[in-house]
C-alpha cells in the first residue's frame, strides 16, 4: 500500500518547482471586483471560543472562513465603522497613511508575500487599499458624494461600501501580512503597512474575526505568563533539564534561580526558547553565559514570556500581556531587565512598553555589573537586549572564547524584521557572531539589515494550516540563503528571533536544503570557555565538536 499523499499543511505537499514559478500577471478583473477565495494552505483557522472568552474579546463562536455565513454580530457594520472612526481619531498614523498614498507602487515588489505568491492584493499598496477603499467611501466628503451619486461610479474610483465580503477579504489579506515593515523602508512617505495591518486586525477583533494561532498564545500568556502555557513547575523542570544537559556538555553545573527577590537583574525571553530545538540550545546558551559571569539574575515564571501576541490582537491586549514584565520587576525588586533573542518581542519592548506600562521609575539605568558599561540608550525603559549585553562583554574582553569550536559552522545572519526596522539592532549581533564563529558570510545586501526579508511566518501566521503561504512568503529569504549556501558553503542561519527559530527551519529545508537554523547564544555558548569546564567534546546540540577544536583546545579570545 502506498503512503497517503502529504496534506496541505505539510511542506511536502508543495513542489518547489511549482512554488518557485510565480505568475506576477494581474488578473483580468479589477481588484475591487475580484472576490477572495479561501484555499487550504493559504489561510488560518479561527480563534476558539474559550480563548476569546478568556481574554474578554467579542463574538466568540464556532465558525470557519470557508463558511458562507461568518456569524458576525447583527450590528457588525456599525461596530466596524465606529471602530474605524475611533481609530482615525486616535492614531495619526492611520489618518496620514489613509490620505497620503499616491499609489506609486514602489512598495509592490518589496513584500515577501507578493514576491513569493504574485497575488496583487499582497502588494502593500493594494493591501492598504482594501481598507482605504472603505475609508474613502465612508469618511471623506468626495467619497460620500460619489457613493450617493452612483455605486458604480464610486467603485470605478476605487471606493466601496462595507459588506461581509469586504470583511472576508480583510481577514484573508490582513492575515497574509507579517507586519515586517519592509515596504515602509521604501515608501517615500513612510507608509507602514504593519501599522495598517495592526489597526485592521483591531477592527476584525471587534467582530470576532481572529485566528487561533494568535489568540491561543495570547490567552495562555494572560493566564500562565507565557504563550505555551508552561506552568511554573514545568518551567522549573525545563530549566533543570537544560542545566543537566549543560553539565553533560561542559562539566559545569550552572546556577540559576526562579522568582528570586532581590536579584539585580530580571531576565525575560520568549517561551519558545523553552520548548523546542533549536531555541532550546539558545536558552541553554543564556544559562551558561550568565553562570560563567556569576550574574546576579533571576528568571520569572509569572513574566515568563518576552513575546507578545497581543501586538497581533489589539493594543489593549498587548498592554495587558506586557504589564507583567514591569510588575514582576517591581515585585522582585530587581534593578533592571535583560531581554532575550526575539523579534516582535523587541518591537514591543523598544517602541511600546515604556509608553504603555511605564514609567519604570522604580528601576535603575542598566549598568553591566561585569564591565561597568551604562546603557544610556535604555535609560528610560531600563531594559536591554542580550546582544547589546554580550557585545559589550566581548568588546571589553570579559569572557574567554574559543571560536574554533564553531569551525563546523559556516554562518550567515538573518536580521529579524522587528529588531532591524523597529529598532536598528544590526551591528551588535554581528559583532557577537563574528567573535564566536570564524566563518561568517553575509547574504546579498538587499536581503539583510533594514532590507531584510521576513521568515514569512511572523505576526501569528506561523501555523501549519497556512503552509503554502509560509513557503511562498519564505521564498525571498530562502532564495538568499540558497545563494550563500551555494557560493560560500553556508550551512547555518543564525537568527535572533524565536519565530525565526521555529519556522525558518521549514523554510530553509524547503528552499535551501542543508542549512540549519540556530540562535546567536547557542554559538556563544559553544565558544564560551567556562571556569572549571571539562574538555569539551560536544556542542550545545549534543553533536561532536569539529576536529580542529578537539585537537587545538582553547585558544582564548580574551
Amino acid at each position, binding site marked *: 500500500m502506498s503512503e497517503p499523499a502529504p496534506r496541505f499543511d505539510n511542506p511536502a505537499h508543495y513542489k518547489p518547482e511549482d512554488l*518557485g514559478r510565480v505568475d506576477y500577471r494581474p488578473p483580468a478583473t479589477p481588484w475591487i471586483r475580484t472576490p477572495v477565495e479561501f484555499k487550504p494552505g493559504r489561510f488560518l483557522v479561527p480563534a476558539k471560543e474559550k480563548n476569546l472568552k478568556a481574554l474578554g474579546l467579542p463574538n466568540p463562536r464556532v465558525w470557519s472562513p470557508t463558511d458562507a455565513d461568518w456569524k458576525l454580530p447583527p450590528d457588525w457594520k456599525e461596530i466596524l465603522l465606529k471602530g474605524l472612526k475611533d481609530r482615525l481619531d486616535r492614531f495619526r498614523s492611520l489618518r496620514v497613511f489613509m490620505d497620503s498614498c499616491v499609489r506609486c507602487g514602489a512598495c509592490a515588489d518589496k513584500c515577501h508575500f507578493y514576491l513569493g505568491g504574485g497575488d496583487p492584493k499582497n502588494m502593500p499598496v493594494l493591501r492598504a487599499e482594501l481598507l482605504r477603499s472603505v475609508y474613502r467611501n465612508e469618511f471623506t466628503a468626495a467619497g460620500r458624494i460619489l457613493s450617493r451619486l452612483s455605486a458604480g461610479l464610486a467603485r*470605478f474610483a476605487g471606493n466601496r461600501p462595507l459588506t461581509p465580503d469586504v470583511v472576508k477579504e480583510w481577514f484573508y489579506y490582513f492575515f497574509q501580512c507579517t507586519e515586517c515593515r519592509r515596504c515602509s523602508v521604501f515608501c517615500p512617505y513612510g507608509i507602514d503597512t504593519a501599522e495598517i495591518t495592526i489597526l485592521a486586525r483591531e477592527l476584525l477583533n471587534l467582530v470576532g474575526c481572529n485566528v487561533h494561532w494568535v489568540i491561543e498564545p495570547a490567552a495562555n500568556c494572560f493566564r500562565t505568563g507565557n504563550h505555551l502555557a508552561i506552568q511554573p513547575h514545568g518551567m522549573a523542570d525545563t530549566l533543570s533539564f537544560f542545566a543537566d544537559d549543560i553539565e553533560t556538555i561542559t562539566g559545569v553545573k550552572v546556577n540559576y534561580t526562579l522568582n528570586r527577590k532581590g536579584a539585580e537583574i530580571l531576565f525575560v525571553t520568549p517561551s519558545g526558547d523553552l520548548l523546542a530545538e533549536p531555541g532550546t540550545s539558545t536558552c541553554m546558551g543564556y544559562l551558561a553565559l550568565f553562570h560563567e559571569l556569576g550574574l546576579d539574575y533571576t528568571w520569572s515564571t509569572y513574566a515568563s514570556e518576552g513575546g507578545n501576541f497581543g501586538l497581533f490582537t489589539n493594543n489593549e491586549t498587548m498592554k495587558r500581556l506586557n504589564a507583567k514584565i514591569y510588575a514582576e520587576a517591581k515585585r522582585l525588586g530587581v534593578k533592571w531587565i535583560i531581554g532575550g533573542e526575539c523579534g516582535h518581542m523587541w518591537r514591543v519592548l523598544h517602541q511600546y512598553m515604556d509608553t504603555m506600562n511605564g514609567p519604570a521609575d522604580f528601576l535603575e539605568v542598566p549598568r553591566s555589573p561585569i564591565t561597568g558599561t551604562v546603557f544610556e540608550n535604555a535609560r*528610560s*525603559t531600563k531594559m536591554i537586549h542580550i546582544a547589546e549585553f554580550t557585545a559589550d562583554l566581548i568588546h571589553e574582553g570579559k569572557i574567554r572564547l574559543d571560536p574554533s569550536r564553531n569551525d563546523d559552522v559556516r554562518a550567515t545572519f538573518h536580521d529579524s524584521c522587528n529588531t532591524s526596522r523597529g529598532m536598528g539592532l544590526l551591528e551588535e549581533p554581528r559583532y557577537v557572531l563574528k567573535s564566536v564563529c570564524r566563518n561568517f558570510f553575509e547574504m546579498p545586501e538587499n536581503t539583510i539589515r533594514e532590507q531584510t526579508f521576513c521568515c514569512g511566518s511572523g505576526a501569528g501566521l506561523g501555523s501549519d494550516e497556512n503552509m503554502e503561504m509560509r513557503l511562498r512568503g519564505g521564498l525571498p529569504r530562502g532564495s538568499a540563503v*540558497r545563494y550563500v549556501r551555494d557560493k560560500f558553503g553556508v550551512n547555518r542561519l543564525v537568527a535572533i528571533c524565536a519565530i525565526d527559530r521555529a519556522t525558518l527551519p521549514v523554510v530553509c529545508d524547503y528552499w535551501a536544503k542543508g542549512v540549519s537554523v540556530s540562535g546567536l547564544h547557542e554559538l556563544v555558548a559553544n565558544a564560551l570557555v567556562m571556569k572549571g569546564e571539562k574538555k569539551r567534546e560536544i556542542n550545545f546540540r549534543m553533536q561532536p565538536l569539529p576536529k580542529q577544536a578537539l585537537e587545538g583546545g582553547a585558544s582564548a579570545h580574551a
Partner: protein
Amino acid sequence: MSALVSLAAACVLAAAALAGAAFPAGRVALGQVLPILAFLCFVAGVAFRVLLWARAPVPFRIPTTCGQQKSLPWIRANAVDNPSSGIGTIARLALEVLFFRSLFRNTQSELRPDGRLVYTPSPWLWAGALAFHGALCVILLRHLRFFLNPVPAPLIALQSADGFFQVALPALYASTFVFLGGMCFLLGRRLVSASVRYLSLPQDYFPLFLFLGIVATGLWVHFFEQSTAAPAKELALGLANLSFARPPADLPAVFFAHLLLASVLLAWIPGSKIMHMAGVFLSPTRNLANNSRAVRHVNPWNPDVEVHTYAEYEDEFREKMKGAGIPVEKETK
C-alpha cells in the same frame, strides 16, 4: 479605462474653457471667480486636512529604522536613517522631502527561472519623481513674476538661470523640459507596467492629465500668443491684490483654458492624494527619533486595562510552585 476617463475629463474641462472664453461673463468666471474660489478651496482644504491629521494623537513612537541604532559607544550609529536626536530627525525628514531618500532605495526584483530572486537598483522612479517635483517647483516660482510687482531680484535670477539655454525668443526654459520628461515617465510607467496599471485609480491619472493640459496650454500661450504676458500679469496682479477690474480684453481663449485647468488642480488638491506633500511631514515613521528606550513617549489616551496580577497567578499555581521549590508570597490562599 481609468486613464481614458481621466483624459476625457481633462479634455472636457479644456474645451469648456475655450468655449466659455468667448463670452464676457465666461471670461470673468474663468479669469477671476474660479481662480479665487479654487485658491480659497485649496487653502481652506489643506488647512482642514492638516488640522485633522495634527489633531489625531501619536500614541506610539514608531519610526521605521533604516540603519544602526545608537547603543554602545564603539558602534557607529546611523544618525540620519536611524536618528536618535532631533537634529538627526530633521536631517532625515529634509532628505526625504527634498531628495526623496526612501524612493532612492528602490529596487527592481526579478525571479529567475532557477528560482533565484535578484534585486537591481532601480533609481528611475526616483529620478522621474525628482525631475517632476523639482521642475514643478521652479515653474511655480517662475510664475510668481506674474503676481509680484516689481519682480524680486532672486526670481529674475532664477528665471534667467532657467532660461540659460535660450537660443531664440521666446525663452526656452530647462524646467519645462525636465518637467515634461518627469511627467511623461510617471504617466508612462503607470500605463506600461502591468502591476502599476492594475493598482492605479482614475484619480491617479487625472492630475497628470491636468498637468499635461496646463503645460500644453501654457506653452501655446508662451510661444504663439506672446502678447499675452502683459495682460496676464495685469489679471494676476488684480487677483493678488483682490481688485477685480474686468479681465483684459486681449487675453486669448487658450489662456483661460490654462487658468481653468490650474484652478481645477488647485481645488482638487485637498481631497486628493496630492496631500502627500503635507503627509510626508506628519508621517510618524519618518518624523520621530528612535529614542523610545531612552526617552518615554506619552500616549494621551493610554487605556486602563485589566491585568492578570501576580497574586491571581500565585493563587492558581501556589501548590505547584511550592512543589517545585519556587518562592511564593503567601503560603496559603
